[in-house]
């Protein structure tokens, strides 16, 4: 049980998230995006990744967090999924950390809402708690399945 795993970390608001390093294709700066009308608000747009068209998902919106303050540009964490690459928009990118899997705990019972679905578990780091994001579940939604009229249309 003492094998080590590597996680790429990134920040959203005041939380630290981690995704298994092997699932990450690349991390790139903010790219110009083409908004997709009629798409769920959590889809921020499409980016051109060297000739490949990649959907950019606003991770703050996906996790029901308030949007990034005006003027700040997110980073793209491009992850590999079964259906090609998908980009997750995050506030800032952190380090790659190597963690002993013994420090893993399931998400606390008090965690509610969408985060409960998307967070696989928690690692206790010295600097805080690292939330492990389930990427497959994060990108698994369709325009039809998230009909949230309350969510504002994304500002292009």
């Amino acid at each position, binding site marked *: 049980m003492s094998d080590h795993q590597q996680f790429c970390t990134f920040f959203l608001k005041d939380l630290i998230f981690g995704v298994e390093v092997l699932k990450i294709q690349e991390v790139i700066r903010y790219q110009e995006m*083409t908004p997709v*009308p009629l798409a769920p608000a959590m889809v921020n*747009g*499409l980016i051109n990744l060297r000739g490949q*068209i990649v*959907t950019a998902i606003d991770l703050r919106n996906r996790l029901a967090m308030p949007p990034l303050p005006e003027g700040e540009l997110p980073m793209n964490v491009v992850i590999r999924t079964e259906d090609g690459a*998908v980009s997750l928009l995050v506030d800032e990118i952190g380090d790659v950390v190597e963690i002993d899997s013994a420090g893993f705990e399931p998400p606390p019972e008090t965690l509610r809402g969408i985060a409960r679905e998307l967070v696989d578990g928690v690692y206790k780091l010295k600097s805080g708690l690292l939330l492990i994001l389930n990427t497959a579940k994060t990108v698994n939604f*369709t325009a039809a399945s998230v009909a949230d009229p309350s969510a504002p*249309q994304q500002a*292009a």
Partner: protein
Amino acid sequence: MTDKLQQQLINDLLIESFEGLDRFDRELLTLENGAAGPETMNTIFRVIHTIKGTAGCLGLGKIESTAHVGESLLSLLRDGKLHPTSEMVTALLELSDALRGMLRNLEASGSEGQADHSAMLAKLNAMQAAPSPAAAPVPARPAAFGLFEGPGNDQSEHPGQPRSPEGEPTAGGRASVSDSAIRVDVGQLDKLMNLVGELVLSRNQIMQNAAHPDPAALLIASQRLNLITTELQGSVMKTRMQPIGNIWTKFPRIVRDLSQELGKRTNLVMEGQETELDRTIIEAIKDPLTHIVRNAIDHGLELPAARATAGKPEEGRLVLRAFHEGGQVNIEFSDDGLGIDTTRVKSKAVERGLITADQAARMGEREAFNLIFLPGFSTAEKVTTISGRGVGLDVVKTNIEKIGGSVDIHSNVGAGTTVKIKIPLTLAIIPALMVTSGGERFAIPQVSLLELVRLDGEDARKKIETVYNAPVYRLRGLLLPLVDLNRDLGLESKAGAGAVVNIVVVQADGRQFGLVVDAINDTEEIVVKPLGKQLKSISCFAGATIMGDGRVALILDVLGVAQHASIISEVRDHGVSNEGKSQEQGDARQTLLLFRATKDGCMAIPLSMVARLEEFPRKAVERTGGQEVVQYRGQIMPLIHVSRYVAGGVDEPDAGQDPLQVVVYSDQGRSVGLVVTQISDIVHEALTVKRSSARDGILGSAVIQKRVTDLLDVPSIILKADSGLVQTGSN
């Protein structure tokens, strides 16, 4: 022999054998038709011989022994010791099915399978013995038979033939070996390599230029690059192109088997086999085409006796034609069978609850033909194994439309039916019109584009008539529903308000409508890229593409946009989720023209019956034989005051009105003008006739937009009016 080598050899055997067996079937059929040349018999023999030989080498005993029996019979035939009969051909075709089954099993599970073919083998053996004592099998001649020749490169052995041999497991899901390989002309490959060479040189030039900029040299280099890329694109496309004959090769066999099963006689004529299509498209249309062929034989052609009575040759004729036209491939299927009886089609559709009796009565011929593409439709009296379950043609249509094609059908009762399919040459790179709306660029595929209309100044304000929420434009007198792309997609218009109106007239599902966009840019060849699964369900977009500046632009799916804006009724979707919705099926949504003709209440007729809306000044009205007429497009068009013919309407509210508001109704080349007092609106609504009417000229009443509205019975009004004017019209 290593496992890997063995597997490679087996793969080769599979590809070679599937191709060979297709050729085997084809040649057998020519033999049966008596059209065999001297080489035919040799080709047939060689196929089986090679399979036997290769299978023997690889230790596939069962295939070897099965092929051996066939070979023995064939060698007798080839040497003229026996004469081919129809039974023999049937038995040999069974043999080829059996071999195919074993090969497929080999592909899927690595073994030859357990199927028992002893009955078939015994039959083949008995045939050898029948006329003359069994001659010893001719010893195999070396080399000469081991090679395949000829251009037959059929990639597509496919389960799902009429008689799939004993349902052995097929390579479920994954592409079979023979589907994953393709033959390319070596010359073509050399040409590709040359072009790639030039491309590399061109790249070097440009890279150099980046280091030491020289505008003139860069210009030359980019022109060269442009040229090379275009040529490369063409050449690569060409390697992907395959003659449509590749999928047609199966048809003679299917036609023969079906005809025999049904006791019909069919002469299959194929023209334009060499017409080339992209591989992906070939794959996509394989099943739909097969379905149409089966349908034509099952439903289209009559039994020989019936044909004789009708004065036609006993042998039915099914013609397949393929040809290129305007960047598209046309495929036509014509039979000289029964044709489609529209009355029967309509009554069936009503019976099955696909349309209302009301709709049926108003339907034109063309619309009636298209009914057979509705899900759940079938005219077959009884369900057969071949067709008649009412699934199929709708799938054919959907599949063809999915790849940007269209299906059209024409028929003459008693004389036959023609199905016309138009499909694009390729799916990967398409010409498209770029437009801008809400500050974003969108691509509209050229195939769905009809024309562009630009209104400026006065016209922009006046020519678009908006009543309630349905804007329309009179395009050469025809009503064109408009969809504002900004509004439909929830975008903010960035163009100056109302200065210019750009209308892109497009066609989807046989319906025309106008897309209002902020600006029209240019046509461009775009590379179609799929959208991620999170966005797939947005029907308005067919994909995305990358523009010259590196930005992403969305490709509009015209059909999806139309559905989103509910221009096209969703009748087609109703049948899909059958049962629960059956009561809704009767009242499919319709586009209706609302107008007033009497003092009291609104009236409606389906927009599909309206040819044009016109205004005539009162002084243009002339009288002949007690009938009011106007000169209209070089014809004399009678005018009918609707108010006079609907019950109770003695009053004439349109008296004194100038100009006259006229709804032009066309039927069989004759136009009639219906004079109304006011055109109110065009609505798209589910139509439920609440109360059928005893009043003359009214079909019934329905609630449309919260108002009770009478549905006008136009044919009956014309009939009534006609008694007074028929002499003036036709004599």
